[in-house]
């Protein structure tokens, strides 16, 4: 059992790392009161998924995917570029989300004078509606 677990962890460590990072990010989103820390958590969460994608495309001893005649003749392997390209799109999207989130935090700070979630909720409760 223990042996099986060890091989499972060591041969597929990239997936374990991304799952671990996901949970760290998830913890920060749920447990932290500070809105900026929540956004940091969200970024970690997203990065974990990016790492998952990037490690999907990796081929052992693979080179950069620039296919030339020489490469085909010598039978070189190259990494799968598609997940990397996909994640480039996802990174742009994540940056946009983070930007919107940070600008919302700035507006919240102007409005309520704090970036602690509990204090903002209290202020909202006092205001009513």
């Amino acid at each position, binding site marked *: 059992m223990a042996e099986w677990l060890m091989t499972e962890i060591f041969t597929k460590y990239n997936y374990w790392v991304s799952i671990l990072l996901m949970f760290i990010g998830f913890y920060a989103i749920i447990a932290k009161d500070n809105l900026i820390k929540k956004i940091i958590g969200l970024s970690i969460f997203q990065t974990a998924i990016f790492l998952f994608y990037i490690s*999907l495309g990796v081929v052992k001893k693979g080179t950069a995917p620039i296919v030339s005649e020489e490469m085909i003749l010598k039978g070189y392997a190259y990494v799968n570029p*598609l997940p990397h390209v*996909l994640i480039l*799109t996802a990174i742009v999207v994540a940056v946009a*989300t983070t930007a919107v989130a940070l600008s919302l935090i700035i507006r919240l700070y102007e409005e309520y004078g704090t970036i602690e979630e509990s204090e903002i909720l209290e202020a909202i409760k006092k205001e009513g509606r």
Partner: protein
Amino acid sequence: MTGFVEHLPILTIVISLFSAFTILVAGWFNKKSCIFIFWLTLTAQFIMSFIILRRVLIHGPIHYWLGGWKPPWGIELVVDSLNAYILIILLFLSLACAIYSKSNIEHELPGKRVSFYTLFQLLIAGLCGVTLTGDIFNMFVFIEIFSISAYALIAARGKIALKASFTYLILGSIGTCFFILGIGCLYSVTGSLNIHDLSLLLPPFYGNKVVKAAFVFFIVGLSIKMALFPFHTWLPDAHAFAPAEISAMLSGIMIEVSTYAFIRVSFSVFTVEFLKLLPVFDILCWVAVAAILMGSVMAITQVNLKRMLAYSSVANMGYIMLAVGISLSAVESPWGGLNPALMHIANHALMKGCLFLAAGAFIYKANLWHITEFRGLARKMPYTCAAFVLAAISMIGIPPSAGFVSKLYIILASIEIKNYFFVAVLLISSLLNLIYFWRVIETMYMKHEEGGHSSHGSHGMKEEIPLGMLIPILLLSSLCIVMGIVWLGKIPIPILDQVNLMFGLGKVP
């Protein structure tokens, strides 16, 4: 001419994106021109959606290869009867909200008109994109486009709306993250991202754990996006504090487009055979039942009208998901397969659109948010209140309204699969609907205004909202009734039957 129609799906998305940019630039020179560009684009899109539907019904699905790259390598747009149907609902409601927004936005967000219309147009571009795409990663990108515009639009009013938007942003991002995780799992198994290609490559892997995990990731991710019961927490605040037309868009079509994405993923990427392997849809039915009851009960406890409507949306997503859940087992002709679900998507768009626009009208006229403040409102705003009542009737499900027909079909489908508990739940929730809408109607019509300020007999149109706001409300509310008769006449049923045929649902001829 046929060649031109082939290009319409991409044109619908592209002119929307282009118009968003044009509005921004035109807004620097002339703020008034924005709304006209916006209207023009939407009208063009709306006409296109009809041409697309006609083409799809006559000649079958449109496959459009972006840049001429053959799928599965290139991105493909696929339009079949399901997309075309959703696209029409989406653009119709957008057009109604666009007409409404002219007066309302001048009043509600006077300094932000240009950015409002830019974002609104981007929201529509994203929604059209999700509806039309035939590539699953492309779908993710469009989901993010409409989500990000929605975050910004919800926050537009400031104060509480900012917090609501922030909560939605966090939950929505987690949802889309799960969605890409699901895509990644499928890619690792099949090496493809095209929806049609995936459906061909996946069957040998149906027993695979990775594929099952991918399906669960998709369900969780999209459940957050469509505010299915345990993940609905972002919805009430976001829908309640957004500007009126955005609330109508969010409740009326945004969560429905997420439902469409769910239907597309579960029936087109995975197929009916896969869904029958796992008990996911049975669980979904029970989750939906919980959503219906919880949403209805929470709606009764609300004092803020828009929050009440938002909780009612949670309940209505329950109806739609219940109908999707039983679609595998119910087969009889008018209510078999996805028919009730797709009907309720259309009906909910009309009803909730109308109710939220009417609620926005009360806020526009007298800054009325709370139900108790509505005393004697029917005398001051007779047309808006009448429209509200018509939509509420449809919501409760009194014949021959649109809401009645879809509820009836869900009930008939539940009877067909012999699950009388679902029938009981639907009837109870109709009663709960009656309770919370009656409360509003009673305050509007039966109770007189407090204090010395007595209302004089005929106020007529003077006290009413501007015509530009009134027309969409009246149009939507009358459609709530007209659509009921249209549904009972079974006129749009052939479209829905085509969808069932495509997914292998309903009675096999």
